[in-house]
Structure formats: structure tokens, C-alpha cells
């Protein structure tokens, strides 16, 4: 599969949709558009045809910086040992009830 483009490549945008007022925007996919405004109008037609959203963000795909998957364990494994951050770490006497 070749990666050389036969014509000018239309920029790629990542699309984030807020499904309901009060919830986070969530990544739903991507699309091509000539500019951000265009991406926004197209995202409405491509990603909210079934009322999936009340708000849309678009971000140029190349503006996203991702963490290195090779560093996944270095980055995230050390959190596993910090059990004291979780409420279940602590014993609360039955007499006290909910805390």
C-alpha cells in the first residue's frame, strides 16, 4: 500500500461529541474537511444523524500529541501500588456505618 497521495490531501480532523448536556465530550471518530469550520458542519451530518450529540468539537488530527505506548508500563504501572488512595483500603467499624 503506497502512502503517496495522488492529489492534495484534505486535512483530517478528530471529532468529539457531547452526547448529553452535563457529560464530557467523547472521541467518536474522524473525518476530512478543508478547514475546522467545515469539519464542524460535516461532523454534525456524519456523527449525529441519530441525535447522538448536543455539542461537537473538532481538532486537527496532527495537533494531538500521544503518549508513547512503549512507556505504558513505566508510566502507569507505578499507580497500581498506591492502594491507599482508594476508599476500600480502609476498614470502618460496622458501628460507624457509611462513611
Amino acid at each position, binding site marked *: *500500500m*503506497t*502512502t*503517496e*497521495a*495522488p*492529489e*492534495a*490531501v*484534505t486535512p*483530517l480532523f478528530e471529532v468529539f461529541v457531547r452526547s448529553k448536556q452535563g457529560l464530557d465530550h467523547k472521541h*467518536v*471518530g*474522524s*473525518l*476530512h474537511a*478543508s*478547514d475546522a469550520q*467545515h469539519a464542524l458542519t460535516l461532523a454534525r451530518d*456524519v456523527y449525529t*444523524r*441519530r441525535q447522538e450529540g448536543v455539542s461537537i468539537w473538532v481538532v486537527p488530527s496532527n495537533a494531538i500529541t*500521544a503518549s*508513547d*505506548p*512503549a512507556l505504558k508500563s513505566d508510566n502507569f504501572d507505578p499507580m497500581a501500588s498506591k492502594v491507599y488512595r482508594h476508599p476500600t483500603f480502609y476498614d470502618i467499624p460496622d458501628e460507624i456505618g457509611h462513611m
Partner: protein
Amino acid sequence: MYTQAFDIVVAGETSPVADDGDVQTAFLARIARDEKIEPQDAMPEAYRKTLIRQISQHAHSEVVGMLPEGGWITRAPSLKRKEILLAKVQDEGGHGLYLYSAAETLGVTRESLVEALHAGKAKYSSIFNYPTETWADIGTIGWLVDGAAIMNQVPLCRCSYGPYARAMIRICKEESFHQRQGFDIVRSLCEGTPAQKAMAQESINRWWWPTLMMFGPHDSDSTHTGEATDWGIKRISNDALRQKFVDVTVPQAAFLGLTLPDSAIMWNAERGHYDFGKIDWDEFWRVVKGDGPCNAARVSDRVAAFDEGRWVREAAAAHAAKSALSKASLKVAA
């Protein structure tokens, strides 16, 4: 989304390249743990190539799949049917788009994939190389072709490559109305005038065998099934899916009062499945290799849309560049 034997490799055409053992072993261990593979993760080159081929074939199938049904939008016999069909065909375009996006996470551009389709180098589901001769075909396609596609696609929601699996989840959700609307069309025809019922039967006669072919060659003849299974791309075999499809469809046809064009169809109590007749694999390979009734027309329709759209895309790009430039100069001025 529609695809038959996802990832059809014609004998003699490109086949995945071998990778060095270490990458392969570590990777297979991840797959065995049922881990999802994400775009930036290390992956064997052969896995990446196979995915690009399969996902792009799948995307092409969706987009080419708009054409046979699209041809009936203007003639839909009621306004309600016109709306449903438009929404359905539009969905297929959306599926193509989600899949092209999934393929792009593997480092290819949509443009290059589309170019390969137009050059006749990429495959798509050969079911779309059959013509839609009557309105009943619109019902049959939804009922049988989308039905078969859904059966193929549901297991892909669990496939090992994250972006593909996520696209498939979205697609399967949208597909759920496609089969029902098709069944609904056929049902209306069967409950309608004798001419309508005859139209339905004639359509089933033409589409039944090509639909069974959508599941791809027999397991014993599928060259890449082993790899695809090891890689967590393929979860259920072609023959198992095909059998499942026959088993659910036979009673549906009986309900409608339609006859499936295969006298060998018979319940086999021992197997707990319906037996059915032999598929004409010569026809299958003939159509896959380009010699179906509509191969040339389908590709040339896509090429025409692409060529006629070029100036539109260029205009959008030129306008975007000019606006960006004038915004930048405003900033400098301020």
C-alpha cells in the same frame, strides 16, 4: 458495512510478508491475552498490511454498496420508502467513512486507498456487482445482503485492532435497521398484489446464491483464515457463519411464503442445522476477479463521482488556504 470474505486474496496477488520472530511472538502473546492493539503500538508488518487490505476492502464495499440501491431512490414507490432508502444508503456512506478513518490510523491516506479502488487494484464485496433489476431487489438486499453482512460484522466488533473494532460497533448499531427495513419491503410485497409477490420471489431467486457467497470460500479453501484467526481479526469461520445465516433465513422465508431456490434445503436433525446445496464457486471467483455483470459500471460510477468532484475539493482547499492566510496576516497586524 458489508463485506463478504473480509479480506479476499486472489491467488497470485500480494500476500502478507513474514516478520522477524521476536516481534511476532510478543505480539501474538498480547493477542492471546485479548489485548486491543492501538495505532501507535508495535505490530508485525504483516498484521498492519492485512488490516489495511481488509479494512479498505470493507470501506470500498460500503461505498460501492451505495450504488445498486441508490439507483432506486428516485423511483421508490412511496414517500415513506423513499425516506427510508435514502437514510439507509446514506448510512452505508457513513460506514465507508468510519472504515476509511480506521484504515488511516495505520498510516495510509484515504486518497491512496480510493485510488487503488479506482485503478481496479482493490477489491470490494462482489455482491455489489449484481444488478438491482426491480424494486423487490431493494427489499432483498436489506433482508438478505445486509442480514449476511451483519452476521459477518458482529464478530468484528471484538477484533483485535481497536479503531476497527470501534468502527464496527458504531456500524453494527446503525445496521440494525437496514435488515428490518428490507424484510419490511419484502413482507409488504408478499402481502400485496400477485404481481408484487411474484416480484419478490423472482428477486429472491436471483439473490439467494450470491448472498451465500458473501461469506467467502469454504474454510478448507481459505488461505488466510489461519493467520486472521491467530491475529484476532477473524473470530468465526466462513462456513460457521454461512450455516448460521441459512439456519435463521429458512424460517423467515417460510413465514413470507417465499421459496428459496435450492431444493437441497432440508432440516438435518442430527446436525441440528439446515442442509443446503452446493455453491457455484466458479461464479464467485469470476465475479471477484472482475467479470460480474456490473463490475465495470460500479467502478466507473465511483471514478466519475471522484473526477467530477475534484474541482470542488480543490476549491474548498484553496478557500481554506486563503482564509488561513488572511487570518494569519490579521494576527501579524494586531
